[in-house]
């Protein structure tokens, strides 16, 4: 290339702040750290994938986020998705459930069953999974503040149906630290919240060793404004905070690290995204091996869901979101994710219709059936561009993590609101860059519709009657249960919380007595207090 043409060349810097060259050669890989930290699939440092055969052995699990109304409504949608070939479930709970409130709490007014399924007692969980084979379909619970209750209810439901919880698989999101950064379904103060995550990890390690009690989320931090390397680096800082909590109790790292799972976002530049996952896999393996001294290979695995993120989708020309979703699914497959899911094309407008959910599901299936994405492991591995960028992104993640440590650690930075302030500042600058046209976004600042078009989206109906039925069912459960036994279990729960013991055995006992989500929250909040949000800009 002539010098003149090179000087006219458009400069490209990716979202992670790395300048992208027009051509890569082996010299770039060498300069970025070389080929030494790549390895083979299924072997340390697992950059190419955590299993030797990856999708050739088992394709990614497809797990759309679903839930609305009450347990009956949601059970019907679960069965629709399973009938259409979905291989896992990801449960959406309504906001009262997520915030640890009962459906008849005054704060739940107008919110029951609106953005997810309402759960008050074990009875709702029994109905939600009725007729679903929990050995064939693994269930992921998107629950955080109220995770102790919902994990306990899920295990209790499975046990009542005759499953051995020692062999039960499944995942709870249960990543409270990211809720303080984005998503906002916190309940208790930061320290107590981390203590509860520790309780669930410790309890599952002993009682339900195949269950994944935590899915550490970079996903929502990215949605809140973080760039891809921050997304992963902050996620790892949070995962380390949970690991430290459990190890401080004397639990060996190999007893739980293999059951930690992760949830990351997919939107943006294809290569940057794929390299983010490859870089993250290597970095996590090194952290768990070298910093924590883990011995078991599976302790080093970055097991993850890579979900096509709403942050990349647009309100404008929503049909184009179907195409975006196809690329996001492609990225997740190229990146070697264990599980994928996609936000649906209509999601900026409504809870997805069955029609939209099926399009997302078919998109993920298509890559396996027609496009060859399940045939060969890490097909981009060995590309000079991809290996260079993987090395560079890993180094950026390490720098961000070192920075967090130098500033006092992730718990401190979250408690004082610093991480929140930083990502929201970035979200603001990104919004300005989109509005000015500096950051191209199709349909928003370029290739806009000529005139405003009527958008053809089927709006999800909200049924007020569902809310009344939910409250009536809760009242019926309260009447039918053994009130004295419920009181005893709640008293034990408060005692355990006050004494600093692991509260999970008492939570399990309480949910089995049909104590409600809200009653259990009340007991824990009486001991731990409630979080007060720092508002910082």
């Amino acid at each position, binding site marked *: 290339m002539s010098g003149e043409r090179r000087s006219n060349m458009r400069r490209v810097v990716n979202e992670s702040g790395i300048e992208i060259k027009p051509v890569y050669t082996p010299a770039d890989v060498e300069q970025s750290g070389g080929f030494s930290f790549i390895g083979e699939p299924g072997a340390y440092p697992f950059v190419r994938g955590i299993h030797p055969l990856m999708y050739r052995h088992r394709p990614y699990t497809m797990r759309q986020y679903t839930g609305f109304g009450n347990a009956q409504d949601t059970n019907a949608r679960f069965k629709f998705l399973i009938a259409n070939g979905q291989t896992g479930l990801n449960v959406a709970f309504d906001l009262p459930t997520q915030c640890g409130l009962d459906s008849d709490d005054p704060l739940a007014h107008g919110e029951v069953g609106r953005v997810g399924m309402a759960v008050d007692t074990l009875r709702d969980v029994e109905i939600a999974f009725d007729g679903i084979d929990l050995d064939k379909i693994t269930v992921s619970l998107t629950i955080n503040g109220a995770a102790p209750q919902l994990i306990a209810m899920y295990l209790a439901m499975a046990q009542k149906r005759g499953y051995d919880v020692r062999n039960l698989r499944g995942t709870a999101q249960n990543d409270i630290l990211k809720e303080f950064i984005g998503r906002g379904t916190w309940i208790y103060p930061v320290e107590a919240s981390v203590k509860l995550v520790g309780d669930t990890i410790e309890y599952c390690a002993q009682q339900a060793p195949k269950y994944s009690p935590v899915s550490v989320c970079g996903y929502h931090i990215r949605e809140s404004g973080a760039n891809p390397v921050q997304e992963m680096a902050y996620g790892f800082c949070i995962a380390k905070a949970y690991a430290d909590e459990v190890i401080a109790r004397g639990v060996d790292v190999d007893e739980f690290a293999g059951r930690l799972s992760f949830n990351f976002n997919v939107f943006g530049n294809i290569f940057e995204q794929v390299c983010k996952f490859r870089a993250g896999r290597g970095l996590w393996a090194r952290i768990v091996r070298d910093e924590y001294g883990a011995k078991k290979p599976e302790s080093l695995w970055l097991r993850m869901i890579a979900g096509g993120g709403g942050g990349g989708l647009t309100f404008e020309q929503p049909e184009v979101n179907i195409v975006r979703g196809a690329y996001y699914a492609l990225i997740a497959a190229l990146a070697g994710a264990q599980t994928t899911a996609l936000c649906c094309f209509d999601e900026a407008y409504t809870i997805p219709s069955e029609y939209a959910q099926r399009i997302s599901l078919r998109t993920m299936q298509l890559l396996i059936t027609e496009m060859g994405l399940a045939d060969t492991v890490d097909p981009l591995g060995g590309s000079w561009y991809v290996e260079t960028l993987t090395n560079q992104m890993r180094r950026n993640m390490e720098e961000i993590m070192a920075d967090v440590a130098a500033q006092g650690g992730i718990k401190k930075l979250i408690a004082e609101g610093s991480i929140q302030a930083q990502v929201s500042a970035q979200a603001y600058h990104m919004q300005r860059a989109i*509005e000015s046209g500096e950051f191209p976004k199709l349909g*928003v600042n370029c290739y806009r519709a000529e005139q405003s078009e009527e958008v053809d989206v089927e709006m999800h109906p909200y049924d007020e009657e569902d809310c009344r039925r939910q409250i009536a069912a809760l009242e019926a459960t309260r009447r039918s249960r053994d009130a004295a036994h419920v009181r005893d279990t709640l008293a034990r729960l408060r005692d355990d919380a006050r004494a600093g013991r692991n509260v999970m055995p008492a939570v399990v006992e309480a949910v089995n007595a049909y104590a409600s989500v809200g009653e259990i929250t009340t007991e824990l909040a009486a001991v731990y207090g409630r979080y007060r949000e720092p508002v910082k800009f």
Partner: protein
Amino acid sequence: MTRARPIRVLLAKPGLDGHDQGAKVVARALMEAGFEVIYTGLRQTPEAVARAVKESNADVIALSSMAGSHVPFCEKLTPLLENAGLADRLCIIGGNLPKRDHAHLRQLGFRGIFPSSSRLDDIVNYIRDNVS
């Protein structure tokens, strides 16, 4: 026209919705435009919002709602504002607001409606043009 003090905006997150990225982005845009912004944080009840408006004597009440409970929330908030003698304040709302709800929100006094995809400068200009 010159004002004795900057336009004061009470920006609130109604109900249990925890999606505050949009609210915080709007808060920054309003501050950059020279407005005084009081951001409540998450989990505000209608009573808390009305109280905050009264205490701050804000000129503008701005709600950011992403999780669909905007109509029941505003149905409770509007009479509280009226009873507190705050019905003269400019009420605006942004977020995930389906078209079918816009007429109802206007009826409840929310004159400025800014659904997802609204531009920051449009929100700033609307406030400037509508606060006397």
